[in-house]
């Protein structure tokens, strides 16, 4: 069976088992990958269904990761007006975060079904103030460390996790480094202090540099049969 057929089967299973019981779950298919967006409150029953129902059979939780959407689509160089106004000399260095408080964070689960040989991405959006979601460690034990990692790096809380400690950052680290409002150079630097005879932490002395500015371009260059010039003419003709 080809990947397309396997995804068709998965879509059918969604229609059979999800549509009625969980009408708020939305699935979409892009680049031969299936994404299922689940409301936060329904995560556990949906995940349980995905694992135990043999039509889904997602026995493996391959990956869990956090995402911070706070700077999504932000461009350090305005490429939209540039043809008319010209580029400015430097990139914008300020940390800009604009987000909808309702859906700043997301937790993304990558599931794998060995029996059906198909992957599924499950996404849960969380709010900015109190990002908390139920832990799936009871369903897949492998989620344990992945959830610890998402907690460490993004500050996402997992309700019911047996051991929610930091995992990757240093002992006594302050902050959640992968959030978009956490600077790349960090907050503190450390050095050995001869007088005190120990390592001391101090605020960072280096400045963050942007070597290549971040640019979002909508030039449609990869869309097939798309001709921006013609589209513009069409728009003008339409009025």
């Amino acid at each position, binding site marked *: 069976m080809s990947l397309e057929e396997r995804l068709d089967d998965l879509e059918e299973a969604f229609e059979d088992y999800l549509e009625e019981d969980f009408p708020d779950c939305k699935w979409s298919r*892009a680049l031969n*990958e299936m994404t299922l967006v689940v409301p936060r409150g329904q995560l556990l029953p949906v995940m349980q269904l995905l694992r135990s129902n043999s039509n889904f059979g997602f026995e493996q939780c391959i990956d869990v990761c956090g995402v911070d959407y706070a700077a999504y689509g932000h461009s350090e160089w305005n490429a939209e007006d540039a043809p008319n106004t010209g580029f400015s000399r430097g990139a914008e260095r300020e940390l800009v975060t604009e987000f909808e408080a309702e859906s700043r964070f997301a937790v993304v689960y990558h599931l794998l079904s060995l029996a059906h040989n198909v992957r599924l991405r499950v996404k849960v959006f969380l709010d900015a103030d109190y990002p908390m979601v139920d832990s799936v460690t009871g369903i897949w034990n492998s989620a344990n460390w992945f959830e610890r990692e998402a907690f460490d790096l993004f500050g996402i809380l997992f309700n019911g996790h047996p051991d929610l400690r*930091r995992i990757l950052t240093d002992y006594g680290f302050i902050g959640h480094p992968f959030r978009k409002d956490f600077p790349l150079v960090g907050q503190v630097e450390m050095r050995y202090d001869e007088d005190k005879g120990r390592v001391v932490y101090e605020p960072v002395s280096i400045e963050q540099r942007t070597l*290549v500015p971040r640019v979002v371009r909508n030039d449609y*260059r990869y869309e097939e049969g798309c001709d921006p010039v013609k589209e513009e003419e069409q728009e003008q003709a339409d009025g």
Partner: protein
Amino acid sequence: MAEIRNYTLNFGPQHPAAHGVLRLVLEMDGEVIERADPHVGLLHRGTEKLAEHKPFNHSIPYMDRLDYVSMMCNEHGYVGTIEKLLGIEVPERAQYIRVLFDEITRILNHLMWLGAHALDVGAMTVFLYAFREREDLMDCYEAVSGARMHAAYYRVGGVYRDLPDQMPRYTKEHLRSEKDIKYRNQAREGSLLDFIEDFTERFPGYIDEYETLLTDNRIWKQRLVGIGVVTPERARQLGFTGPMIRGSGIAWDLRKKQPYAAYDKVDFDIPVGSNGDSYDRYLVRVEEMRQSNRIMKQCVEWLKNNPGPVMVGDPKVAPPPREKMKDDMEALIHHFKLFTEGYNVPEGEAYFAVEAPKGEFGCYIISDGANKPYRLKIRAPGFAHMAAMDEMTRGHMLADVVAVIGTMDVVFGEIDR
């Protein structure tokens, strides 16, 4: 009778058997492990955050440094995800080159693992043998990319350049006799492909050598049989992939099940264990080396007969040829834009995984249409395996911890990222 007290034992972070920087806090009852708490993250460099601040191509060298004994497989996972987002079809020759080097990488990794594992358990010789062959394979890396380890050879759209027609040779020097140099240059008279072909002829004999040292060795078996047993059910629960899940008897291999590059065009078998213990995983990995050798042979033959491009022709992602740049305005502009700004990846998200030597290595990229990834998540196989440390060592003796670390084949570059 003396009272036996419980101990908490710190294993690492600086311990020769910890394979890098692992701090293990062990709660012991006498010499039996009651609980193992691995503290990872001592090598955390924030690769994913760094990648968010760099154009897509600049992060390829970071991938080499994740799992620093299977470099090109990591690159493959990363460029594969970007290609998926861009919708690029890689030329067939580049796909075969990628398969060839993925398998060279697999042998490199398994040799390193075999040597280090044997060394941990108490056999010195295998390590020296394994490094003899690693040297030849590193020379292949060097011949194509100029670097022995951190190659940055795979690029979005293909590979950096075609395979060289000439294998670099040893030259005269006062430390080596002429006879020695002649002996070393024997296999280097022809092209890189000739050199690899010669290696694939020799290599099965070398594996036999390792096996005579280990497979039926009484001490080796005493240390590995029945140690770190994982049932198929637990292996699935714990998110195991690669040789770790195959050792437990589940025939799952992404190269076969979800073929990428040219893996659907080559013949090979998936070795599977039956008991799920360290010894089975050893046998699986040794057989994998033989299968890799088989794949390499097929790739060499195909590559010898099928010349062609190794990079896509799309100037938006691949730099134009140097000569063209000198007299073509368009090519010069493309070159300039590509090296100052990079290319933009259409908005969307993708996950692409390869069967790295250690298991499933996957990259999840969210792009918002910029020239840098919005979010890059690296799914490292060792991370899930390391998380099972507690379960695999519980009830074993202290000395078995070393055997379990060895059998998991962990590298902290990828676990800590």
